[in-house]
């Protein structure tokens, strides 16, 4: 459904040129439309106007009545009959701007040669355009101790600050993390933190990016480079499914920083700190660079590419094989795995879900997600948003920012069906529907949605039997828009590419003969396997039972699944070809290791949760690392069963030519909700999610980033706390037969039957330590 928005247009004259802009447009923005650049510092199109820096003063008259003094063009909306004279046509405006620029420089140090911002600094640039070469100020400048940490990640050089309040307004208005404010007054005014509440925001890097001077710098980038030595490449973020547009800045083959790109329909101009600051994994010392094969003594030795490819091809040809590909693969790589499984291995045994998953989920994805068109825009227009097993701030931060924008703008109603109240939902003033882990589905029935509502369901919904069935039913009965938001960047692309046992590329059901013919024709093959493939856990079980003998694994951490012991046993048993960037539990057990390119070293695209392509080029030019796709193509060639995908471009073209499936989708067989377990007094049901900043593989080596992660705690309800005699900060032990974790307790809003802990944080790696993460009965005791 498309709606035509009627916008009132207003005509104004700026510097003698007429321009027509929507009602409510600020003068400074109307001038931009004419190509007239009015200098500014505090103005930012996504922040509320503040009019603090006074740099953008212009002369304005309305219907012949002139304002007595120049006005800040960043605070005044256009009006009919308005005539604006900027610095280009008004001597008063010109002098006012020149005067303000001179004043801004009174207390600003002349340290551009050692300042990180030098070369890309709005103050430097506008001092050149609007200021004068020589200062008339002969007095004493204000100085401060420098720099001070406002977090482990963000440093502040107070003497450089022009007090535009962009950072504080961003934190308050966009991130709803008002942890930095302006303190003191006069020229001693400064950005500061509350001493007991550090600047631990998931979005703090944006404050650094929008600082118009060199006052805020990122600890990891400070003094590393001059802007003019960097080569910038537009890129896409690989850390989650939000789909941020990014810019990657590289010097001499090494990524030095990443910035949020500008995409109004997705991330606007923001990103999260993980996307911005987690990229050292690419240059980690233990990065795999040469192929290895396991020799006859069982030892991994370095090998040449021809040797390794031959060994891989031989092992895969000799065994019945399956493919496990993690959620980090690009769309094109996933397509390569998908085609490789079908053509080279002759199987549908492929699954991209390297995490807790279910067969219900696989059907749900094929029935309701593949080809889905719900977008950020639907959130913008929603009458309410229902979050199911999904914590946007932790699991897809840009979705959180969008919800928060609509909440702040028009009090968007957000309802969260969750086991525990999260900080993010609190910030959205969301309605928290408290459920016991596993009982989420029961709460759905009480939700009344309309066809203007949006349901955002997270990948964790697969962990509660019957939940996805209930979500699908609610969407159907209410007409609400439905979106499935996985955590990893590659999952939606992998789904569309058919890297799953029940779907071929383009959402074509394996079970549909016509769909198989479509693909077989495109791939110039006689036929494709017609049985639905096995899921990841079935593949592992099949290896352990001997019916599958070889595995191709790319980007999978076996500890991301609850049956990690089973997985490790299967890896030991099977012939494993591992396509990886860094050593892992898989490479340790692999028979052939083939090093692959990281995201910054290759081109490709991700499909974000909306299904929107996020394409990127290789940011690092002179890498020798090859994409998964290229390597799979070489193995297939070696096996004599070519997949003909030598390049990313070839894959992208082939995907485009396949188009989408327009036939019937498979339907979801309703799964019923599991009965709630009965608990003894020392038992609880575990629930968890991953925090944005945790022990994730791609965050390794980022100490400054890790230091801003949220505290690891075990959360219990006040009732349980009373029963256990536990108060905030006391140690709490959660245990299963497999093991235990002991964490400081936090008494909070959580279902009485539940205990929550972060899934993969320092001291709390539930899947490996407890073997369970959601819905299972655990023991809880005071430590």
């Amino acid at each position: 459904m498309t709606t035509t928005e009627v916008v009132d247009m207003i005509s104004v004259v700026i510097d003698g040129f007429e321009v027509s802009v929507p009602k409510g447009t600020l003068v400074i923005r109307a001038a931009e439309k004419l190509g007239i650049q009015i200098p500014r510092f505090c103005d930012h199109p996504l922040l509320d106007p503040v009019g603090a820096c006074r740099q953008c003063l212009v002369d304005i008259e309305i219907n012949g009545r002139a304002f007595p003094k120049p006005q800040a063009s960043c605070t005044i909306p256009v009006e009919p009959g308005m005539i604006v004279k900027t610095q280009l046509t008004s001597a008063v405006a010109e002098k006012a701007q020149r005067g303000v620029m001179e004043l801004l420089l009174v207390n600003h140090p002349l340290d551009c040669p050692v300042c990180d911002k030098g070369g890309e600094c709005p103050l430097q640039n506008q001092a050149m355009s609007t200021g004068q070469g020589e200062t008339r100020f002969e007095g004493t400048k204000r100085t401060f101790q420098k720099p001070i940490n406002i977090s482990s990640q963000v440093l502040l050089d107070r003497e450089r600050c022009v007090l535009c309040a962009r950072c504080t307004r961003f934190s308050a208005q966009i991130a709803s993390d008002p942890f930095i404010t302006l303190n003191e007054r006069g020229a001693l005014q400064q950005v500061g933190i509350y001493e007991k509440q550090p600047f631990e925001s998931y979005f703090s890097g944006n404050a650094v990016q929008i600082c118009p001077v060199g006052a805020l710098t990122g600890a990891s980038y400070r003094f590393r480079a001059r802007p003019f030595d960097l080569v910038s490449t537009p890129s896409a973020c690989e850390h989650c499914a939000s789909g941020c547009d990014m810019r990657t800045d590289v010097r001499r083959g090494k990524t030095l920083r990443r910035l949020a790109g500008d995409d109004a329909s997705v991330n606007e101009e923001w990103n999260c700190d993980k996307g911005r600051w987690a990229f050292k994994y690419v240059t980690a010392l233990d990065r795999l660079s040469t192929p290895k094969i396991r020799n006859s003594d069982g030892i991994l030795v370095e090998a040449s590419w021809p040797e390794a490819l031959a060994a891989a091809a031989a092992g895969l040809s000799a065994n019945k094989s399956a493919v496990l590909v993690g959620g980090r693969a690009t769309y094109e790589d996933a397509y390569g795995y998908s085609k490789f499984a079908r053509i080279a291995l002759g199987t549908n045994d492929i699954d991209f879900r390297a995490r807790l998953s279910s067969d219900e989920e696989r059907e749900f994805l094929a029935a309701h997600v593949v080809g889905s068109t719900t977008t950020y825009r639907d959130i913008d227009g929603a009458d309410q948003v229902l979050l199911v097993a999904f914590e946007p701030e932790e699991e897809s931060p840009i979705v959180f920012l969008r919800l928060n924008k609509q909440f702040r703008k028009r009090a968007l109603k957000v309802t969260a069906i969750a086991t525990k109240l999260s900080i993010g939902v609190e910030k959205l003033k969301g309605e928290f529907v408290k459920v016991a882990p596993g009982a989420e589905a029961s709460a759905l029935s009480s939700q009344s949605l309309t066809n203007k509502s949006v349901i955002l369901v997270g990948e964790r919904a697969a962990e509660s039997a019957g939940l996805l069935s209930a979500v699908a039913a609610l969407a159907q009965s209410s007409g609400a828009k439905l979106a499935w938001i996985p955590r990893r960047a590659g999952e939606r692309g992998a789904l569309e590419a058919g890297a799953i046992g029940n779907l071929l590329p383009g959402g074509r059901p394996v079970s549909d003969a016509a769909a198989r013919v479509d693909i077989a024709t495109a791939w110039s093959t006689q036929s494709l396997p017609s049985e639905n493939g096995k899921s990841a856990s079935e593949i592992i079980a099949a290896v352990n039972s001997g019916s599958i003998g070889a595995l191709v694994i790319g980007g999978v951490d076996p500890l991301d699944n609850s049956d990690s012991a089973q997985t490790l046993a299967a890896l030991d048993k099977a012939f494993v070809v591992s396509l990886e960037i860094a050593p892992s539990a898989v490479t340790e057990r692999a028979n052939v290791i083939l090093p692959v390119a990281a995201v910054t070293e290759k081109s490709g695209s991700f499909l974000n949760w909306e299904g929107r392509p996020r394409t990127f080029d290789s940011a690092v030019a002179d890498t020798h690392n090859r994409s998964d796709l290229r390597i799979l193509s070489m193995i297939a060639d070696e096996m004599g069963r070519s997949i003909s995908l030598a390049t990313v471009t070839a894959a992208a073209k082939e995907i485009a030519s396949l188009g989408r499936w327009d036939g019937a989708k498979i339907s979801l067989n309703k799964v019923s909700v599991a009965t709630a377990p009965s608990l003894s007094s020392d038992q609880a049901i575990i629930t968890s999610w991953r925090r944005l900043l945790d022990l994730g593989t791609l965050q390794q080596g980022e100490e400054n980033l890790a230091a801003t992660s949220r505290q690891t705690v075990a959360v219990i309800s006040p009732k349980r706390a009373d029963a256990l005699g536990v108060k905030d900060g006391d140690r709490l032990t959660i245990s299963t037969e497999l093991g235990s974790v002991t964490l400081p307790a936090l008494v909070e809003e959580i279902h009485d039957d539940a205990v929550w802990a972060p899934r993969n944080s320092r001291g709390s790696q539930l899947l490996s330590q407890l073997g369970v993460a959601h819905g299972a009965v655990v023991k809880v005791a005071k430590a």
Partner: protein
Amino acid sequence: MTKLAPVLSAHWDEKDSFTIDAYTRNGGYKASKKALAMDPDAVIQLVKDSGLRGRGGAGFPTGMKWGFIPQGDNKDHYLVVNADESEPGTCKDMPLLLANPHVLVEGCIIACHAIRAKYAFIYIRGEVTHVVRRLNQAIEDAYKAGHLGNGIELVLHVGAGAYICGEETALLDSLEGFRGQPRLRPPFPAIAGLYARPTVVNNVESISSVPAIINNGAEWYQSMGTEKSKGTTLYSLSGHVKNPGQFEAPLGITLREILELSGGIRAGHTLKFWTPGGSSTPLFTSDHLDVPLDYEGVSAAGSMLGTKALQIFDETTCVVRAVLRWTEFYKHESCGKCTPCREGTWWLVQILRDLEAGKGTEADLAKLLDLCDNIMGRSFCALGDGATSPITSSIKYFRDEYIAHLTNGACPFDPAASTLFEGANK
């Protein structure tokens, strides 16, 4: 032939003037009873008709301000009284509250009724503990007597001593618990003020003038003052005069008349310069003794009536030194929000310190004036403008004195001669 017209200050000489008993004895709380029986719009009209204008400095018609509050909007309305009297030289609201706090309380009741507000807040500067105590007592007594609490609540909020909080929107921010910094307008307080609700912000003296207007009628009030500046007001005389203090007179009285009433400049000295309405209003000299002290008269002579704080300086005073002191005040009190005020006052002080010490050249005067031109009308609120007034006006009238500092290589004045320490005034 006295020109004095004590209305607000009529009973200040009574020993117990600040008590509810004295206030009631002198006819207090009759006006609120009368007003509460009137239609709120009629109260607004009466105040409009009286010609009462804001006594906080800007002189905006009080009744008109009340009339801006949207009616029937189903929103809470608030009255906020600005008692954050902080302008150097200004000292009328504090004596008024010390001597007769109940007149403000009664004024609040009437104003709340007129603008359909259930809550009034008085934002008072925190340093004046004795005034805070009296006002607290007055409010408590008014509650006990049933004047407050029957549909109108009055809250006294004590500020922490920032000049900027006298700016009405900064005051509202401070009252809401934020740092006091001026807000972007529009929206104006009448539409979205305290807690984003329609709010009237009035000066203490403006609200305190209302009970007498209700009691005596618009015509009575109109009968005093000049054509466009009606009524009586408090003139606060301070500095090198024989008898400093509050002089309540009809608007339009001249300084010459007030000096006559007060016994003149301290003995043996002559008037050099003075402020008509606090340090933010451009200086006057002895040439301005006959300027009518009403909104139009002062404005026509190149200054502003402001708060009618008549700071008198005799010939012993170094104007450069006086201006430097004021400028240091503005630098200290600049809230820091906007560049011109924040950075400009930082710079102005440094130039003025040099000039007072006799360092620099005449070119520095040109720089100083150019700098003032870059601050005046460029800052976020009027406080930045105010900081330039003493500088530009003093250079206008006393340029030679500035230059004398430079040619002399030091200040030619003896600072001790201008002091009013004990004995100096005798």
